[in-house]
């Protein structure tokens, strides 16, 4: 294959094309054949579909997660916020995909609500913005947090990590980051101006 043809073939190749299953371990009922997206094994496609149909977060929990992840990654002059990038839905999926996350997440939200009720008389999402920041400030800085806040610190670190992963793997986040790869190209080395900037050469 000539290089140009390769590139053309690549750009035409199926991205997420829905195709019929290669084989099913158990014959599917004829009326409803599962659709296996390209690149998925049948068991994975079935598992994904099942997980997507389930709900983990209660509306209250989802609201809490949404507020928290937008505090962690808000909109700024360069890009949108975590919730605009679909982070809450990603976190919801990860709870079902890797159930070990469920207790720290659900319990963490409870911990937060309990602290907020003790401090402000209301669960987190019903607090004022200033109150929300007040409690977040107590759990967002691991090295400064007081002894009675360590569980909250763990919870917030988990939220921070999920939020960053979800945001920067979204279309909005990838653009924000300036990642310009994942496309056929011809690598010719580090650009000259960058080499010069670092005092390096080939």
């Amino acid at each position: 294959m000539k290089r140009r043809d390769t590139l053309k073939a690549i750009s035409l190749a199926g991205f997420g094309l829905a195709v019929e299953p290669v084989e099913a371990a158990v014959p599917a009922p004829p009326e409803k054949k599962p659709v296996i997206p390209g690149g998925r094994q049948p068991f994975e496609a079935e598992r994904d579909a099942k997980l997507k149909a389930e709900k983990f977060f209660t509306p209250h929990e989802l609201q809490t997660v949404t507020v928290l992840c937008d505090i962690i990654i808000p909109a700024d002059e360069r890009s949108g916020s975590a919730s605009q990038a679909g982070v809450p839905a990603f976190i919801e999926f990860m709870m079902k995909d890797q159930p070990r996350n469920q207790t720290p997440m659900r319990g963490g939200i409870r911990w937060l609500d309990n602290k907020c009720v003790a401090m402000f008389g209301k669960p987190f999402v019903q607090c004022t913005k200033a109150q929300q920041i007040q409690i977040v400030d107590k759990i967002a800085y691991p090295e400064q947090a007081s002894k009675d806040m360590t569980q909250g610190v763990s919870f917030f670190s988990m939220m921070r990590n999920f939020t960053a992963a979800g945001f920067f793997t979204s279309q909005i986040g990838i653009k924000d980051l300036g990642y310009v790869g994942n496309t056929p190209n011809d690598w010719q080395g580090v650009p000259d101006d960058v080499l010069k900037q670092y005092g390096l050469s080939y």
Partner: protein
Amino acid sequence: MNTFQIKEAPTVYDVAIVGSGAGGGMAAYQLTKAGAKVVLLEAGGYFDPADPKYITQLKWPYESPRRGAGTTRPFGDFDAAWGGWDIEGEPYTAAKGTEFFWFRSRMLGGRTNHWGRISLRFGPDDFKRRSLTGVGEDWPISYEDISPYYDAVDKLVGIFGSKEGIRNEPDGFFLPPPKPRLHELMLKKAATSIGIPVIPSRLSILTKPINKDRGQCFYCAQCGRACQAYADFSSSSVLCIPAMKTGNLSLINHAMVREVLTDPNTGLATGVSYVDTISMQEKTVRAKTVMLAASTCETARLLLNSKSSRFPNGLANSSGVIGKYLNDSTGASRSAFIPALMDRKRYNEDGVGGMHVFTPWWLDNKKLDFPRGYHIEYGGGMGMPGYGFGGGIENLNGRIPGRNGQKKAAGGYGAGLKDDYRRFYGAYIGMAGRGEPVPLESNYCEIDPNNVDKYGIPTLRFNYKWSDYEVKQAKHMQDTFEEIIHALGGIALGSKPGPESNHGYGLEAPGKIIHEVGTVRMGNDPKTSALNKYQQAHDVKNLFVVDAAAFPSQGDKNVTWTILASSWRTSEYLFDQVKKKNL
């Protein structure tokens, strides 16, 4: 209805090959090209890297609901391995106080669809470690015996690299290597300044076209997803599919081989029995010669399970050596943050799948307190973000001055944190040592007396512990990593793994580096080896092993290039023996 009625195909093939990975693919390719009628039995499903049904290459993280997390595939949602450390219904165990991690792929091409493409020849010394050091084992062949096959593999499969003239890192027939990325140039400068060499890596990726059936690398860094342009080496695209085109190959997918069948009178192999994993039917195929390439541990398992009154210890095992001397590469790693790389200019630096430079073993073990060497693999750069991106920033951002020159409290949230992720992107590097262990009789796999898989086939039980040799080598790796990080002006991440860390000095658990070899080793003495120097069973002349089970040791070089070369050599020998009517 008797479901245990065994279906027997009437054809007698010239050769039955078990497993379609590096070893089986090469044998299938060579033998079908030479005109033999071959049946290839593969436990997994069909896979073609160019078929949209299977393609994950060039997908974006958001096309995965888990953003590429490794929930169902250990190396992530887009990785081309079907299988992993645990396969449902195919368990394995480890004896108390020992451990082994066993990575298996169940698909056409085996683990070569997603492997790292690091393609290193063993050097002359790697074939005679016992003579040189007094520990371990010599091979029954030398570098000179295998080097013509390395040459041939280089040309058939394609590999890039650079001629360096290092005695124990033999050069090959190389395509041009890609230029180093920015962090790789920095690493090279830093490491070289303290006497550690850094040279272009040697990967089986086509930086130039080599024939009309395969495309050229288009630099997406995703070889691990298998290349739809066939621009890297996968046994599926480069060997098995071309072998099918000869018209001489019958490929049977979903064929889990149970045992090698023998004639009780002659003691010769007559074929194999297998379970069709879809229909669960028991079947057999007949062949004049049987070649095993199910991967190191699986090949040993097959032989140990092929018991008969004539072969009570398992087939080809009069030496009792099968399963023993199992050994995997050592591995230890460290990562660092490079402040000089913060706030980088963005450009596409995906490059090929994997590192563009590496460090071959550069020291003399005679002057060290451990007998074997290691090489260093490097990671880093502005790669495509994936699951886990930005994880653990709270351990780092308190140590780095902000744009205003002031340090701030670690962790945090908001616009400042968001900016940290951007600033730190592309400023991390990773180093991984991959070393040679000393093969020991006490490290072995055996048939587990208590367990079977879902096909009723007895499973493996592992017995593996690192020795002091490997622990000392890992200590040396950790010291070296810190020296390089220091020379780079980097900040080492995490604390330095010490003697108290798991296995000592961050040494990975046995099996984790996925270079297992040695369970059906070759040698000149039938009392201490199962195969002769052509990887032909001492006890059964029409039985061959063409995967790394045959290797007495593994060098500090990843093993696959040697599997390809030796499988080719064995295939040629087999053909020659058939011509001479010895088989």
